């Protein structure tokens, strides 16, 4: 009996079927999955001694205390410090140790877009400053006035005949402390009260104590969670504030204003925050300045000129510090001298204002160099903490203050300036020091010397001043309110800003913006479905947004919560203009 072709096929088929039904394939799959766990493509977390280190977050003016879990010298996770007045960290703070690995980092200084030695950059900028005419100025755009670095800038500019220390921050907010713990109602004119305003942890810890009235056209996160939402277009906030003031006096002609006034009457004390002119007007009417539950005076406030108030075409040399780059370039360009101006970007990033700069001085990011956190936004008392570096400073990077000191031929170093500040605090002898490691507060007079205080601050600590006695304070002369755009037949809609992804952040922010849909993706235009249908759009379609000066390709997203007649744009820079949208 021979072995036929049919027998071969039967044997092969039977073997295949038997093998498939045996445990062998499962075993192979199992072994393969075990093997795949150690493929070279799977990163191996580093090993090393695990320890805690402390620093202070400088990513925003909140100045939150940070407890870092480090493997060797490398932070692997960040968390807030229990008992710190600023509370827990926000999303950016939790992933702040990833910033060093972001793309678009400036790794060396550039002149005209090409790598340049520091000496060449210094001499070029010095020459530009020396060539400044009598009607021209040298300006430093300070990202956060009130620091020791700001003092370095002021001293440098004071040595020039026409130096201007300016900022893009609203100094109205920086000039007062807010007694949030005793406030029972907040009228917010567009301030993101529940989305990063002041110290987020402090605000959220007190959320149950105050009623929130959000006066804003956009359907922001804060508006969506407010106790009362008042949709008012940008540029008309002051008019609404006036209506509320009249309603507080008994005028009931404006029903929305009357409703707000009613809430304010039954929830005292109250304050207004956000768009300065409107908030200032309402705070005056509410008597919020200088009383418990209101806006409190505090020491250590340093004013800086609002860049918007600098005369147009007057700046010959503009030095822009990191963090100021959210300003639209158009605004800064308008301030520059028409010819031969020089722009210097002191920044860790190659985008933003660095794209327009003649010189880019590469700066370290958060955690890469010793820095400081001045008085947190809204803090009722002056405060100071150091932000010790947890990572080594990469070569060729220079902190902005250090660069200005070299430009000024100052022989001191930036840490020397910080030490002087700490010594001055010790000498004044006021207030307490809150240490991060044990969450204890110590009167500063119990710290033996300035050197001891310096060491304590380097290990992670916050100095808090004594409160000033309650006394009347006055609103500063504030910036003008934005003009309300007027719709036209060509541009019948209003473009307003919505929450947009941060320009520089941990890659893990993808969890919020693209992997979960919790936050709007970049270049989204959110419209009311009725507005969308009127303009021929469908939910999710590609569209073109146009205004008189710009156009953007966007993805249209329908949301019935959005105000009809407006387009909320999730992109950097507040558009606040008339515009239109069409399908592409």
């Amino acid at each position: 009996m021979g072995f036929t072709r049919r027998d071969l096929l039967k044997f092969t088929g039977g073997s295949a079927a038997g093998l498939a039904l045996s445990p062998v394939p499962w075993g192979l799959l199992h072994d393969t999955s075990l093997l795949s766990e150690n493929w070279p493509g799977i990163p191996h977390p580093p090993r090393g001694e695990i320890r805690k280190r402390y620093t202070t977050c400088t990513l925003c003016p909140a100045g939150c205390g940070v407890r870092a879990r480090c493997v060797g010298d490398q932070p692997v996770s960040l968390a807030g410090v229990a008992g710190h007045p600023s509370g827990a960290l926000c999303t950016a703070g939790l992933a702040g140790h990833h910033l060093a690995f972001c793309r678009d980092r400036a790794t060396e200084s550039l002149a005209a877009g090409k790598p340049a030695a520091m000496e060449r950059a210094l001499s070029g900028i010095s020459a530009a400053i020396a060539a400044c005419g009598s009607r021209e100025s040298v300006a430093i755009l300070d990202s956060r006035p009130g620091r020791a670095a700001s003092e370095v800038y002021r001293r440098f500019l004071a040595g020039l005949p026409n130096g201007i220390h300016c900022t893009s921050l609203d100094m109205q907010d920086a000039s007062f402390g807010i007694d949030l713990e005793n406030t029972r109602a907040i009228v917010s004119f567009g301030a993101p009260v529940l989305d990063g305003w002041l110290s987020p942890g402090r605000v959220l810890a007190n959320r149950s104590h105050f009623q929130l009235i959000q006066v804003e056209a956009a359907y922001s996160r804060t508006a969506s969670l407010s106790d009362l939402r008042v949709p008012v277009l940008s540029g008309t906030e002051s008019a609404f504030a006036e209506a509320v003031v009249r309603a507080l006096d008994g005028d009931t002609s404006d029903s929305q204003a009357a409703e707000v006034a009613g809430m304010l009457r039954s929830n005292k004390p109250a304050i207004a925050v956000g768009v300065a002119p409107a908030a200032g007007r309402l705070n005056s009417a509410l008597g919020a300045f200088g009383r418990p539950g209101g806006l409190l005076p505090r020491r250590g406030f340093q004013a800086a000129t609002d860049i918007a108030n600098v005369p147009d075409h007057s700046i010959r040399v503009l030095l822009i510090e990191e963090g100021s780059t959210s300003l639209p370039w158009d605004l800064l360009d308008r301030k520059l001298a028409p010819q031969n101006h020089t722009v210097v970007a002191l920044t860790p990033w190659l985008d933003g204002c660095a794209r327009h700069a003649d010189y880019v001085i590469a700066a370290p990011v958060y955690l890469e160099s010793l820095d400081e956190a001045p008085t947190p936004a809204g803090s009722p008392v002056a405060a100071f903490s150091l932000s010790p570096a947890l990572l080594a400073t990469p070569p060729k990077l220079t902190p902005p203050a250090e660069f200005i000191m070299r430009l000024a031929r100052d022989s001191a170093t930036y840490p020397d300036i910080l030490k002087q500040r700490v010594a001055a605090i010790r000498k004044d002898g006021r207030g307490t020091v809150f240490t991060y490691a044990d969450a204890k507060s110590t009167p500063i007079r119990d710290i033996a010397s300035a050197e001891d205080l310096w060491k304590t601050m380097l290990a992670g600590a916050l100095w808090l001043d004594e409160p000033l006695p309650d006394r009347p304070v006055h609103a500063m002369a504030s910036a003008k309110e934005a003009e309300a755009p007027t719709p036209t037949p060509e541009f019948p809609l209003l473009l307003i800003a919505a929450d947009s992804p941060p320009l520089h952040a941990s890659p893990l922010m993808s969890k919020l913006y693209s992997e979960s849909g919790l936050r709007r993706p970049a270049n989204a235009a959110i419209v009311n479905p009725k507005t969308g249908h009127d303009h021929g759009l469908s939910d999710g379609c590609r569209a073109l947004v146009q205004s008189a000066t710009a156009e953007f390709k966007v993805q249209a997203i329908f949301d019935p919560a959005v105000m009809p007649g407006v387009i909320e744009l999730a992109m950097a820079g507040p558009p606040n203009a008339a515009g239109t949208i069409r399908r592409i």
Partner: protein
Amino acid sequence: MAAPITKPARYGMAIDLDRCTGCGACMIACAVENNVPPARPEATPRTGITWMRVYQISNGAPFPDSRAAFIPVLCQQCGNETPCAAVCPQEAVEVDPATGIVDQMPQRCLGCRYCMAACPYHARYFNWWDPQWPTGMEKTLNPDVAPRMRGVVEKCNFCHGRLHAARARAAAEGRSELRPGEYVPACVEACPAGAIVFGDLDDPASEVARLARDGHSFRILERLGTEPKIYYRTARPWVRQAAAEPARRQESAHA
């Protein structure tokens, strides 16, 4: 002398939806703690990995009466007929009797995704790609958690690495039980609003057990009888209704 942890617990959470502002700090803290990689450019909400995912829901009212609520959804750690464990052909899902935590073992997982289909809460995620971090960022990975390979399912395990670390500390100190608050997942620690409370549901003195008994507490899809260990709290009826009957609510929203 090191002592093993002998006292069993039934860990659970109470999440206050009236405090949650949807900031996403819990999501970021979770990803940092558990070495969840950033998204590939091609990732979408369907393919991205978020052990903790915050959903935004609306009261359905049009402008200007719209209001939102944010619901953090993670593995609900089902305590009865755990659906994912019941369907796994590889026994890669296990309910730990000592803690009540539903564990996922990527080494055993074949990537069949039956568990994803079975999970009523969409709280399980498949690794469509090898985990990748930007160059140099591997240095920031948590040494207590191994990154998972392509082709396996993963999910929240109440930060198991932290539980092990807390147990090791307790054992080194000669204790046979953990102190309250000694072990908390990263999301609980990170929440700036203090909206998440974690602890032993079987300990009647614990804050989480007290909140779970609260009249405003509920569990998502409670009618399925899976006995989730994640309790939610809200005083807003529409939020509670949306959580109880998400499908019907979605239908009515689109009607």
